């Protein structure tokens, strides 16, 4: 019970804040409730299959295989693979983090992890189609082009700016996923 309380302490704080918000700002009440319902729907709809795939990935994909595809020595092939994996994903960015943790556990390199997150956040293929129909092909394609470039730069900068000890710590932490 105590552990449960500890784990959910931020949730309890946020709930209290939200209740206050709803009580004190009645003008925003309907909208806030609408968003909570929408977010919950998204979570219930999109998250279960992602987590099922996550569990299956953990059980079925051997570490050696992932190392070969996305490991430190995978080079350009690994980067392309990380891009494709992120681009074919579905779901909000926050669903990418647990998947990234599993990929880390399986030995994907830190660069490729960051590329994967970048691709998931911004170069998803269904979204691109939607973007080009809404904002025009020029807009969507130029954004895609600069994003591919930027995602790689960001991954290189992350690797360069983060201390090796911190990256190792993150890998150790991912190892604990079970």
């Amino acid at each position, binding site marked *: 019970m105590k552990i449960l309380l500890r784990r959910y302490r931020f*949730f309890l704080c946020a709930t209290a804040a939200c209740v206050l918000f709803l009580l004190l700002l009645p003008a925003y009440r309907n909208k806030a409730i609408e968003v909570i319902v929408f977010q919950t729907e998204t979570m219930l709809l999109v998250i279960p299959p992602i987590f099922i795939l996550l569990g299956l990935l953990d059980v079925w994909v051997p570490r050696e295989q992932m190392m070969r595809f996305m490991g430190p020595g995978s080079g350009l092939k690994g980067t392309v693979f990380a891009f494709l994996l992120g681009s074919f994903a579905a779901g909000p960015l926050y669903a990418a983090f647990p998947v990234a943790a599993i990929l880390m556990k399986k030995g994907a390199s830190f660069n490729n992890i960051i590329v994967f997150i970048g691709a998931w956040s911004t170069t998803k293929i269904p979204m691109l189609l939607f973007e080009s129909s809404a904002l025009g092909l020029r807009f969507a394609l130029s954004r895609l082009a600069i994003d591919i470039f930027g995602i790689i730069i960001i991954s290189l900068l992350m690797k360069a700016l983060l201390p090796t000890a911190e990256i190792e710590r993150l890998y150790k932490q991912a190892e604990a996923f079970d």
Partner: protein
Amino acid sequence: MEAALLYLVAAICLVWSFLKDRQKTRIAIQKSFKAFEGILPQFLVIFLLVAMIMAILDTRTISLLLGKSSGGWGVFAASLVGAVTLIPGFVAFPVAAVLLQGGAGATQIAAFVSSLMMVGVVTLPLEIQFFGKRAAFLRNSLAYMFSFIVAVFVGWVVNQ
């Protein structure tokens, strides 16, 4: 549509796994549940934060902010709004399209779209959970700065 495809893929993998090895499948599903339960508290916090922020910054307010502001200040405002909001693309793109037709600059819209997708201020608690404070702050800061480059580049291409 996207979700249906995701379910299809997950179902096919699950059936395949079950046919190949029941015991392994059982372990996989246990792991799925454990992982989900592990981040549920963070998920719930994010939902409530998002609800409060999005109640104030609804699409109408965002349109007002992005539609009015122009120039460098407009790009800055657009990137800030994008960073603190969490809107799915299928809602954000039509809004952005209306703004573009209404005369908003492509540069501002690109700054908004880019920081909306790559920067997540409200999802930071979750990102920190998996990537630690340093990596999470660094990734978001870099992505935020990058959204200005995207804005300039896309604005330049679109206005050619």
